[in-house]
Each structure stands twice: as structure tokens, then as C-alpha cells.
């Protein structure tokens, strides 16, 4: 067990070091910022899907809610960015509480139900009727507090916290309980696991992560429209990265994000013409030949994956 924790710690340290040092090697900080956003979101998906089996198709709903709650705390209440980001996380948890009846659904029902929920939030936020509150379709402008360096550092801290949480879950009774629920909720309940409470915990945790990440994103990007932060592709990217790397592990989403998002940018910057085509083919090939994610390569050889 202690050895497992050590492996997790190694992944943690490598990731944090990379994101701290990379900007001084390659000065496109935004690239690494986006990478961190996707990494944290992928880990959020991992907590929910990997450990409980619920696939949140509408995960971006929490992200957008966090972004808007943070932005509005800054513009309307004049709260400094970092506490505002915490409010973003809280707002997402509140949304999670409102949406918790979704947990009664399973499989594709849950996936699509959460998608519907995220679209609803988007249509409400962007509706002109709420213009006085959300600025409706005119979007957000946070230029007065724009500090890319500070938001970058904040994002590193968020990634560190998220990675820490995932390492904890991976190595704790809580994580084991969640996996037991995922495999067979009825027997897990009989074995004395509080099914509903544990599952809700994972759901709120995952919502909070997306909310906080959304808040940091809002601060970093600072001028945006509702479509930017409720873009369904954000969900899809986070899910694809997670599944591609391998769920229920600490390492999987990290690998998935680095490889796929890395490819995405390498192709995007060098060969823009057939960009989408190459990306689609890549995903297809990987799904067919590595269906359990990249970590299955290591597992097959009998290695432990943190």
C-alpha cells in the first residue's frame, strides 16, 4: 500500500514540476494552461466515471457555471479573483445538489440527462432576460483583474489539489467503496457501504473540481462569451482524454491528456490542413487497438499503475 502511494506521489511531483518548469522552456504559457484545464477536468471525470461509473456528458455545465459564478463575483460583487474562484466551485456544488436526482439514472440515461442539464444552464445564462445579472449574450469582460501569471499559478495549485484528491481516492477505503458500488450497488449496500452518500460525495467533488477549474479559466481567458465556457467540446475532450488514458487510475488521465492534447497541438500547429481528419483517425485507431486505455499496456505486463 505504501509503495502504491509512492508511485502516486511520483506522478504528482512529475506533473507539478512539468507545469512549473515548462513555461520557462517554451514560452506559450497558454498552451500549458489549457493542458492543465483539461488535465483537471479529466481527473474530475475520472473521479465520477472511473470510480462510480457515471459518465457526465454535460460536465461542461459545471465548468461554465464555475466560470460564470467566478466572473460575476468579480464584476458585480468586486470580490478578488481567488476567493471568487472558490465561489465558482461552491456554485457548481450547488448546481450538483440541484441535479443530484440525476444519480438515480444509469448508463447512457445519466450521460444524456447531464448533457440536457448543461444545455439548460447554458440557455439560462445566455438568455437576454437575465442580461442585468449575467450580461446575457454579451459575455464577460474581466480585463480589470487580468493577470495571466497569477491565474497560471492558481491553476497549478488547483491541479495539485485535484491530483492529491485522486491519489487519495485511489488509495483509500472511500475509493474502494466507490468501486464496489460501481460493480454492484446492491451487494455494496449489504456490505455496509452507504451507497447514496458515497456516490453523492463523488458527484459533488467532481462538480466542485469543474467549477473551480472553470473559475480559473474565466480569470485566465478574461474576455469570453457564454458559448466559450459552455462549449460541449470541453466535456468531450475531458472524457476522451480520460478514457483514452485509462480510468480508475491516477496516471491514466495524465497520460491521456498529455498524449492526445499534445498530438492535438502538434498536428494543429504543423499540419493544419487535415487536422480534424488526422485527429479523428488517431482516436479511432486508439479505441480499436487500446480499448482499455493506455494504462492497459502496463497492466497487461503485470505492472501496478498508480
Amino acid at each position: 500500500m505504501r509503495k502504491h502511494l509512492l508511485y502516486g506521489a511520483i506522478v504528482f511531483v512529475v506533473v507539478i514540476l512539468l507545469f512549473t518548469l515548462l513555461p520557462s522552456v517554451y514560452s506559450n504559457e497558454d498552451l500549458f494552461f489549457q493542458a492543465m484545464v483539461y488535465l483537471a477536468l479529466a481527473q474530475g471525470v475520472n473521479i465520477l466515471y472511473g470510480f462510480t461509473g457515471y459518465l457526465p456528458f454535460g460536465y461542461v455545465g459545471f465548468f461554465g457555471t464555475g466560470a460564470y459564478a467566478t466572473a460575476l463575483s468579480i464584476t458585480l460583487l468586486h470580490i478578488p479573483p481567488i476567493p471568487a474562484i472558490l465561489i465558482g466551485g461552491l456554485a457548481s456544488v450547488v448546481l450538483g445538489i440541484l441535479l443530484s436526482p440525476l444519480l438515480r439514472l444509469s448508463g447512457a440515461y445519466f450521460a444524456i440527462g447531464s448533457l440536457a442539464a448543461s444545455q439548460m444552464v447554458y440557455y439560462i445564462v445566455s438568455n437576454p432576460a437575465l442580461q442585468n445579472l449575467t450580461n446575457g449574450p454579451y459575455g464577460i469582460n474581466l480585463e480589470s483583474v487580468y493577470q495571466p501569471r497569477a491565474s497560471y499559478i492558481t491553476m497549478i495549485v488547483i491541479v495539485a489539489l485535484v491530483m492529491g484528491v485522486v491519489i487519495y481516492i485511489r488509495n483509500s477505503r472511500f475509493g474502494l467503496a466507490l468501486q464496489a458500488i460501481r460493480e454492484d450497488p446492491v451487494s455494496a449496500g449489504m456490505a455496509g457501504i452507504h451507497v447514496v452518500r458515497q456516490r453523492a460525495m463523488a458527484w459533488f467533488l467532481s462538480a466542485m473540481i469543474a467549477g473551480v477549474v472553470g473559475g480559473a479559466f474565466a480569470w485566465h481567458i478574461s474576455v469570453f462569451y457564454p458559448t466559450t465556457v459552455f462549449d460541449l467540446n470541453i466535456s468531450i475532450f475531458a472524457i476522451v482524454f480520460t478514457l483514452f488514458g485509462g480510468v480508475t487510475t491516477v496516471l491514466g488521465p495524465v497520460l491521456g491528456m498529455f498524449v492526445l492534447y499534445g498530438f492535438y497541438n502538434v498536428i494543429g500547429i504543423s499540419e493544419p490542413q487535415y487536422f480534424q481528419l488526422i485527429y479523428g483517425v488517431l482516436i479511432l485507431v486508439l479505441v480499436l487497438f487500446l480499448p482499455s486505455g493506455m494504462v492497459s499496456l502496463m497492466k497487461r505486463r503485470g505492472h501496478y499503475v498508480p
Partner: protein
Amino acid sequence: MKSTPYRVLSRIAVSGVIASAMTLSGVAAASAASKAPAAPKQIVIGTLYASSGSFAQSSLPQYAGLKFWVNQMNQSGGAYVKAFHKKIPLKLVAYNDQSSSTTAATLYNQLITQNKVNILVSDFGSVLTSVAVPIAQEHKMLLIDPTGTGDSFFSKTNPYIALTSLPTSGVWPTTLANYLIDKHYKRIAVIYDQNDFDQSQATTLTNKLKTAHITPVYNNSVPTSTSNYPVLVHAIMSSNPDAVIELGYPTNDIPFLQSVSASGAKFNMLFTIFPGQLLSSMEQNVGVTSLAGTYTYPTPPLLVYNNVNFGLGMNAFATAFSKANNSAPNFLDVAGYNAGLVIQKALANTNGLSQLQLRQSLYTFSGKMFTLDGLFKLSPTGAQIGETLPVAQLVKSGNGLKVNVVTP
């Protein structure tokens, strides 16, 4: 820049360098150049385009227009830069953001930090421009913004943006509102989409009408993704309007006009935005007969300015562009080319390649330069105020349509 003695000296030094480079050996040039800023071998212009996604239809022509200008410059040996008293070749670096604003943010940063572009040009429209505004400001890069007309981009605190075509969208309906008031239309229906571009226009329009004591008989917003209109058209018809104003994107204007035409409804005035910008595409999708008689904001190439004092005139541009691209230019091609012209003039007037020098240079000819896109005039915040959008009626001419400007 003020002409300080140091500047005069350095300018003499620069001209000395150029003279010696032409006559003497390169070694002498190199040693002299170390004293004054050397002329770069090329000027790097960075931009983004969207080859797919919802903005592709508009983004690609804008990019084609800019590329056309770069090629034209390079054929003549590059763009003349005043600070170095010589022509310097241009290099265009462009990435594909696929209409995603998050990807665009990364790529704008890539252009600035990795490609070290000298001039940054944003992608089409407000959504893809929005994310560039703070990034450009942070890196102290002047953002040349061809068509991102969102009002919130322009503020007194940000000197790093200049809108080259079109006024900010809130200004667009000024002449339209006046026209409606002059014509004494009392029953006006306004239907607009829920986005910055359309809603800011609707707000201006209804406010102007209000000052003339006109309250629209139908005034509703619809989601931007709306693609079927029969029921909406029916609802508008039942409010019995004289004039119907639909403010949308091309993907809204097309089904809206189709529905009006299919319903057989007749209004005294029917106004949409995009026939004036993308006429050939609208003709293909809606049909010449259905468009004839409707109103729009005409833009070049439909609108031809005769008093052009910089760059190609409309006809020469259309011929050269068609030859180079095998297709006739639309408004966005003009907008892309016009952004190029603004850069060209800025380089020709600049005292250096620093971003604030470039911006300052823009104001030396603001209000004086007349291109095929109209008068180039910047407000102190960098917004475009020279170009205005008249109102025109589309009338049949042969197999196609032409515009008949009704005001101003």
C-alpha cells in the same frame, strides 16, 4: 515620435547603413548596424483562420483577402517601412483554430510567444477575436482586428487594438433606424438572435425608434441556433407589420427568407443583414426572386467607392482577386484585404516596429485614408468610426441582383 536630435542622428545612421550596404561590403554594414536597430529580414504577420466549424464560411474568405494582400506586397519586393527606408518582405504565419475560442486562445499565444510575430491579426468575428483582446494587451501586441465588432473590446485603458473594417455592431442600425422613421413606418417587427452581434443592433434600433415614439409591434429574440422559421414568420404576420427587420447570422437569414417566401407573406419592407455581405451565397440559397425587393446593409463589393486614395479600387481588386483565387471576392475578402492595406499604410508611416509606434502610426492617417472599404477612421479607443452602413434595396438586374442605395 518627436524629432529629438538623437532620432535624427539615428535616422542618418540608418540611411548610412542602407547606402553602405548597397555599395560597400556586408561586414561594414554589420558593424554599423549594431549602433542603430537593424532592419529585420522579414516582417512576420500572424493570424488565425477556421477551416471548419460555424465560423469557417466567413473566416476563410477574410484569410484569403489578407493572404492576397501579402502576396501582392511580396511580388513588389515587400512592404515599405518608413523606419528603415526600405521594402521588407512579409511572411504570413497562420494557424487553424477550427472555430473554437479555447483553441484560438492557445494559438494567438503561440503566434506571439513562439513565432514572435511583428503584427497580429485576429480571426473573423467577435467570438474568435474576444479571447485575443486580453492576450494581445498582456503581451503589448497591437491587435489588428478586421471584423471583431464587439463593443466591450474597446476601452480607454487598452491601446492595443484597432478595428479596421466596420463600426462596432451597436452603431450599425443608425441609418436603418433613421430610414424607418423617415418612411413613417409605424408597425415594425424586430426579430433578432441571442448573440452580441445581433442583440446590440436590436438594442440600438429599438432605442432609436423609441425616441421617435415607435414601439415595435413584434420584438422578440430567438436562440442563435434557430433554423426553422415558419411558425415565427406566422407569428410576425399576425402582428400585421409594415416593416420586418430580421437580425441574424447567415444560417438564420437563409431559412428566415426561405420561410417568408414560402409563406407568401408580403411586407412593405423586409430587412436582413447578410445579403449585403455574402450576396452570391444568399442568392444560391434563397433564390434571386425571393431576395429581390428586400433591404440590407450593402458592403463592398456591392458598394463601390470611387474616391479611393490608397490600395486597389474595387474593380481592380475584384479582377486581380478573381484571377488569383478563381472566385469573385465577397465582403470578407475585402475586409481581409483592407486589414492588409491598413498594415501597409501603418508600416509606411511608422517610426519603428514597436507596437505603440505602429498604433501611433495608425492615427497619422486615421480619417484621411480612403480604401475600397471606405473611410478608415479610428476612435481614440481603436474602434472603427469611418465606415458607415447605408441601407439599400436589392433589385433584379439580368439574372442577378444589384443594390440600390436608399439612404443616406
